[in-house]
């Protein structure tokens, strides 16, 4: 095998998974991993735990990892441009590649609000952000969080642990509106409120008020003025697509790829938060996964394809799990049925809630609150496209267990195997 040149841009879930996948089938290739941030790989999932002081060490690979993977690293070296078969770095150097992976991740969305650049307004996307938040904590009493998504709830947990008064400003009518259905979101909200978190729904920040060059309060669109020593942005993410743009790749909200994570240019791949990949459940649609899970799976699939050993791919399956101040919540796939061909099966008790979404002959989504032990088998059956008629015996009132799926054993669906043009 000739010695191929692989260049990976990024140093988080997707890039590391790709690195490992390439090495599984190609020991000889030259691999160079390039990243903006100067430190070895760390887990962004752990950032809220760093803020709360629960975790100091965020590294997710042992020391000597890159050497053991026989990968060169150029850390703290932003890639600025793709030109023909080279990537230009910020110091003007050029890296030639046979295969390139763009795993540039995402940044926090910044709402257009007057005073949003005032010191004391933070995102939580990097270790540098987390350090800035920690530095601003001494003497802080009030925190306002803009947004009600997943990051928001992890930040709430961290700040609440630190004893701050936390207020959430949410544009929609509930928390986690893109991850949960109304009923489960209300359950989460009730728990947060009981724990002392103030939640203002259908409310946005109108203006950030400053005093002595630091944030002092948030004026809301509903006419409130909420005191704030720090403000955290949690209005979702934006894909980092600038680098892909310089190479003339097809980009919409994210870098467009096909089922093999290949961009509009066959030798360039994209994986993770910056990527808009075919959706598993919505044919013809592309979705930004935006989760750690999806970044790992996409990185593995991209790495395998780059090394010439493509795996069957299944498309983006939205799923996530988290624990707020109280119960765990998990959601997999869709949270509302797409049309009248579907039905929902709901079981709710005081502490737990379970909703299964059945569309035609298959399960297309689930929301679980409390006990999430069914989540793995459900995710697996959705990904493998198992229909209910293939079940040995489908009883919607019973938890779904692996043996239900094992009959018959089915490999991943083949339909996404064909490599289609990305446009």
């Amino acid at each position: 095998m000739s010695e191929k040149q692989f260049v990976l841009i990024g140093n988080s879930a997707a890039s590391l998974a790709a690195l490992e996948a390439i090495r599984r089938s190609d020991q000889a290739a030259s691999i160079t991993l390039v990243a903006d941030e100067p430190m070895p790989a760390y887990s962004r999932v752990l950032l809220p735990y760093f803020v709360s002081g629960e975790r100091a060490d965020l590294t997710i690979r042992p020391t000597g990892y890159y050497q053991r993977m026989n990968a060169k690293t150029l850390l703290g070296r932003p890639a600025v441009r793709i030109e023909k078969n080279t990537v230009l770095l910020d110091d003007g150097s050029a890296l030639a590649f046979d295969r390139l992976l763009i795993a540039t991740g995402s940044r926090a969305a910044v709402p257009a609000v007057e005073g949003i650049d005032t010191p004391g307004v933070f995102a939580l996307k990097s270790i540098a952000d987390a350090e800035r938040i920690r530095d601003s904590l001494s003497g802080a009493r009030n925190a306002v969080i803009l947004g009600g998504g997943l990051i928001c709830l992890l930040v709430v947990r961290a700040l609440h642990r630190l004893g701050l008064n936390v207020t959430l400003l949410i544009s929609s009518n509930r928390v986690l509106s893109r991850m949960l259905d109304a009923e489960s979101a209300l359950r989460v909200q009730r728990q947060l409120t009981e724990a002392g978190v103030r939640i203002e729904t259908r409310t946005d920040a109108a203006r950030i008020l400053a005093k002595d060059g630091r944030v002092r309060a948030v004026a809301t669109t509903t006419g409130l003025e909420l005191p704030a020593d720090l403000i955290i942005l949690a209005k979702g993410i934006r894909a980092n697509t600038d680098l892909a743009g310089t190479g003339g790749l097809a980009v919409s909200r994210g870098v467009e790829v096909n089922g093999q994570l290949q961009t509009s240019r066959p030798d360039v791949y994209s994986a993770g938060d910056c990527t808009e990949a075919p959706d598993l459940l919505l044919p013809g649609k592309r979705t930004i996964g935006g989760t750690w899970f999806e970044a790992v799976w996409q990185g593995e699939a991209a790495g395998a394809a780059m090394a010439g050993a493509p795996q069957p791919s299944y498309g983006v399956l939205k799923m996530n799990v988290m624990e707020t101040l109280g119960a765990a919540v998990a959601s997999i796939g869709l949270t509302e049925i797409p049309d009248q061909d579907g039905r929902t099966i709901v079981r709710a008790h005081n502490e737990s809630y379970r909703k299964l979404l059945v569309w035609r002959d298959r399960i297309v989504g689930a929301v679980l609150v409390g006990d999430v032990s069914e989540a793995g088998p459900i995710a697996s059956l959705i990904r493998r496209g198992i229909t209910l008629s293939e079940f040995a015996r489908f009883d919607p009132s019973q938890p779904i267990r692996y043996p239900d799926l094992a009959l018959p054993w089915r490999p991943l669906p083949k339909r996404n195997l064909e490599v289609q043009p990305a446009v």
Partner: protein
Amino acid sequence: MSRMIVVDPVKCTNCHMCELACSLVTTGAFTPGKSRIRVHAFPADFKHIPLTCFQCASAPCARVCPAGALLQGEGLVRFVKEACIGCRMCMLACPFGVIAFDEPTGVISKCDTCGGDPECVKFCAPKALEFRESGLAEAPKGRDFARRVADAAKA
């Protein structure tokens, strides 16, 4: 090649001794609800299927763990309790549903084969559980298991 707990559902008599043995070793009390091996009963089919961690060779749980708490080993997926943040991502990643969450400690729990000498196997009188060499890689492990389940359904 490494040893693993191999399940033969055809032989399982639904006695739940494995659950008692497991919970005693891992929690110090007979608490089958906390056992890391669970016998799934399918009463309508007269089938009972014990299920525990397969110690996958390329374990999805270890691949997604964002806290470095699940480490891929040879014949064992090692759980580092101190590193676990209780995010439950592994529970979503595991198709077998064999990772449990332990509320009091706030971390997950999964089979560690009792360090290579699993107690459940010793207490399985009908020998539905065996601890032996198995050269099967991850997918075939699941496939092999599925075949056993299928055989059990036919039997």
